């Protein structure tokens, strides 16, 4: 658990990126899980977890005030867990993905709570805001940013501390083979990605044919390898 503090810092930075600063999408699971895997010492495992989650994340785009999973901190938790358990590879991808999804769900809830907290703070400073007090505006903004950073750090630390022992025990008792485990996990993720692609793009004229054409090319490339 020596890695807990640096991981929580990484999770804090990536969690902050989701909404508050700078929204460069380094919080996407493809980036977060790969970075966490590299940090723990197995970049490839982190990347595999990140790719599988990225397929799932295509279905959860951060539209406005909607509630969506918080992928930044969650991907750090899942990528780090999978990479740390690489010596028993059969179930690592699956438990890494599961840990991320569970953390992302809770993370989405913490974002809602953060927004309520920000509203409460703004309500308490309404007088200053209405008077145009510079310190109030800047204070609220810095307060919100700091709260989000702390939220994401705490979420990463708590989720990793709670889920790592569970994941280690699960991987120790894992009975399915590595190829089967990976096939089931990525098969489920592919289903979400394909459904998301349809949902997002079908309103564009001809998009279904573009998707079908791409699918044919993808399958041909697979057969030609």
């Amino acid at each position, binding site marked *: 658990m020596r890695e807990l503090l640096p991981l929580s810092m990484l999770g804090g930075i990536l969690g902050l990126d989701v909404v508050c600063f700078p929204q460069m999408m380094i919080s996407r699971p493809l980036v977060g899980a*790969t970075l966490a895997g590299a940090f723990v010492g197995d970049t490839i495992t982190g990347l595999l977890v990140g790719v599988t989650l*990225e397929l799932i994340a295509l279905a959860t785009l951060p539209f406005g005030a909607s509630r969506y999973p918080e992928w930044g901190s969650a991907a750090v938790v899942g990528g780090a867990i999978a990479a740390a358990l690489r010596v028993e590879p059969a179930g690592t991808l699956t438990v890494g993905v599961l840990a991320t999804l569970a953390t992302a769900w809770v993370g989405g809830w913490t974002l809602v709570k953060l927004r309520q907290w920000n509203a409460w703070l703004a309500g308490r400073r309404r007088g200053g805001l209405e*008077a145009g007090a510079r310190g109030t505006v800047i204070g609220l903004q810095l307060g919100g940013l700091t709260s989000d950073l702390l939220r994401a750090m705490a979420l990463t630390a708590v989720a990793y501390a709670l889920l790592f022992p569970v994941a280690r025990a699960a991987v120790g008792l894992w009975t399915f083979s590595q190829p089967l485990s*990976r096939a089931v996990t990525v098969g*489920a993720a592919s*289903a*979400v990605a*394909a459904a998301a692609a349809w949902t997002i793009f079908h309103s564009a004229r001809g*998009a279904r044919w*573009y998707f079908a054409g791409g699918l044919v090319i993808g399958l041909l490339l697979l057969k030609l390898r």
Partner: protein
Amino acid sequence: MTAAARSYPAPDPAPHVSALTWVSVFVRTLAIQGSWNYETLLGNGVGFALEPVLRQLPGGVHTDAFKAAMARESAYFNAHPYLASVAVGALARAELSGVPAERIERFRTAICGPLGSVGDRLVWAGWLPLSSLVALVAFGLGARPLWVVLIFVLMYNVGHFGLRIWGLHVGWTRGLAVASALANPVLRNGPAYMARAAAAVAGVAIPLAAARVVGSDGLLLDGALAAGGLIAIGLVRVHGRVEGWKLVLVLIALFALVSVIR
């Protein structure tokens, strides 16, 4: 776009704002959602981003004009966070040009809808999934981890930072007449082109990425893709009633449970 958003004349010659002030404004726009909440949404962030420019109002930060501008600009505002820079640029120009408060407030109300809907279609439903899918194709074709991550981060952020910088520039140069800039062909037709490109890339990316994760077992890969296709059809049919990622969480959890207890 509303008629109110279109009806403003071109602004007077631009006041001078130093490069350092623009850098400060730009960095602050990156944190425009820092205090996002269900009451004022982006409002406080807009005031925060404009504050370095408003310091240039005659008399500085202790005047009534500065405080009135800060109060006005920190009130409720909603937009896509990247395209909010269009509003920030336009509002900076309006405040320094001494545009009457009522016109500024009318503009803030009118511009919210267009900036939100254009940004959502262009970025969240267009550029983000397209960048992500291109990186997944690179992964499926065997790219190393660093390249996969770099392809995504660089591609996405060329669009991201380009949009923010363009927004600030076009807002500042056009002032409250900026709404016409939203008729730019990239903003108007870009989402449809991106949707078609992303649909094609999705078709390539999904089987290739799945294949590299599964490895060399062709039978398992075929089974995974076929099962994935069937589940996808089901998810499309129940769209809106079941969230795919939650369904997957349950399915994978059940699979893990069986693997552990059998």
